């Protein structure tokens, strides 16, 4: 934990620079996950107080279920017992990441991006754009961004304020890479503030028809989906805490 003068100085700078803090429940959850000796009951209490976090944890704990009626893991307590602390870490990472993505659409594309259930979107088939950023340190994993070529083109055009027809493949790839940078930069800040220091690798963006997502040994996977018609975006986060 930093000394109090540092924390006060940071709060003053954050106010002056207009830096928004992560939601209290997410900051608290990240701090608990970062403490390797933390008891699960405390984590359960934080997650249960936030209906959004609880719903996401149960989705992560029931990866094959298409809706709640198919859940075999029904409570936050069970989910953490069965899947371990990595599950809570995914929630702590996914929230700032989702917030940054939604805010990017709002501020840079003037589009309202809504978070939806993965099953509500069309399945990605065949060749699509995939971007990935790896991170390593006290937590190791990857963030993947997947979308159709048409969605990638629409996003690049919106961010750059250009007509989609004017864009070449390099501009589309670079815009997708920057979108990834913005999302991961925001969640990295939240992890580092909680003591889970990690470094980001440069983004890799390209076309692929491979829909598999490698998961780090002992790690978890959360799938998130977003829509702002006609754009559809899939995010996958894989993570394993305490790698080093």
């Amino acid at each position, binding site marked *: 934990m*930093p000394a109090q003068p*540092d*924390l006060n*100085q*940071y709060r003053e*700078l*954050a106010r002056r*620079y*207009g*830096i*928004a803090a992560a939601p209290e429940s997410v900051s608290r959850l990240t701090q608990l996950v970062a403490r390797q000796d933390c008891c699960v009951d405390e984590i359960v209490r934080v997650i249960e107080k936030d209906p959004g976090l609880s719903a996401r944890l149960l989705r992560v704990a029931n990866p094959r279920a298409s809706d709640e009626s198919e859940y075999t893991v029904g409570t936050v307590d069970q989910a953490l017992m069965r899947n371990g602390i990595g599950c809570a870490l995914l929630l702590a990472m996914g929230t700032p990441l989702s917030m*940054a993505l939604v*805010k*990017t659409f*709002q*501020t*840079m594309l003037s589009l309202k991006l809504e978070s939806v259930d993965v099953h509500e979107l069309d399945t990605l088939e065949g060749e699509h754009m995939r971007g990935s950023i790896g991170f390593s340190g006290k937590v190791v994993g990857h963030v993947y961004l997947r979308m159709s070529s048409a969605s990638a083109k629409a996003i*690049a055009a919106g*961010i*750059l*304020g250009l007509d989609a027809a004017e864009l070449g493949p*390099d*501009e589309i790839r*670079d*815009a997708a*890479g*920057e979108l990834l*940078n*913005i*999302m*991961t*930069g*925001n969640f*990295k*800040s*939240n992890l*580092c*503030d909680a003591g889970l220091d990690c470094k*980001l690798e*440069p983004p890799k963006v390209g076309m692929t028809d491979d829909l598999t997502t490698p998961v780090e040994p002992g790690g978890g996977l959360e799938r998130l989906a977003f829509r702002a018609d006609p754009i559809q975006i899939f995010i996958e986060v894989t993570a394993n805490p305490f790698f080093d």
Partner: protein
Amino acid sequence: MATKILSVDDSRTIRLIVGKAFRPYNVTLLEAANGEEGLAVAAREKPELIILDVTMPVMDGVTMLTKLKEDPALKAIPVIMLTAESGRDNVLQIARLGVRDYLVKPFKEDQLIEKAGRCVTLEKKPAPTPA
């Protein structure tokens, strides 16, 4: 005289957005894709403002800022950090190095103009005369 502003970011997308934001103003925008290039452009062109990313290949923004502040010829140039990283340690370290302002990505073009306008004079270009 146009105001010289240097944008240092490895993302072409961000450099394009920064360029678009300053287009209505009498600004000469200089660009660099990493800290090493940024230092070279700064030494050659003596910009009045630098807009600097943190995470970049070759030389990152914190290293570039440190070197700028060590150089008597460049240390007075105001720097605005433009980055997605707003972690406590990052912000404290950068503030202590002597940054003028900090803008977290994603950002709106008018936020950048407002912060830049506090560091340098931004003159609007005259509206084009109808033919």
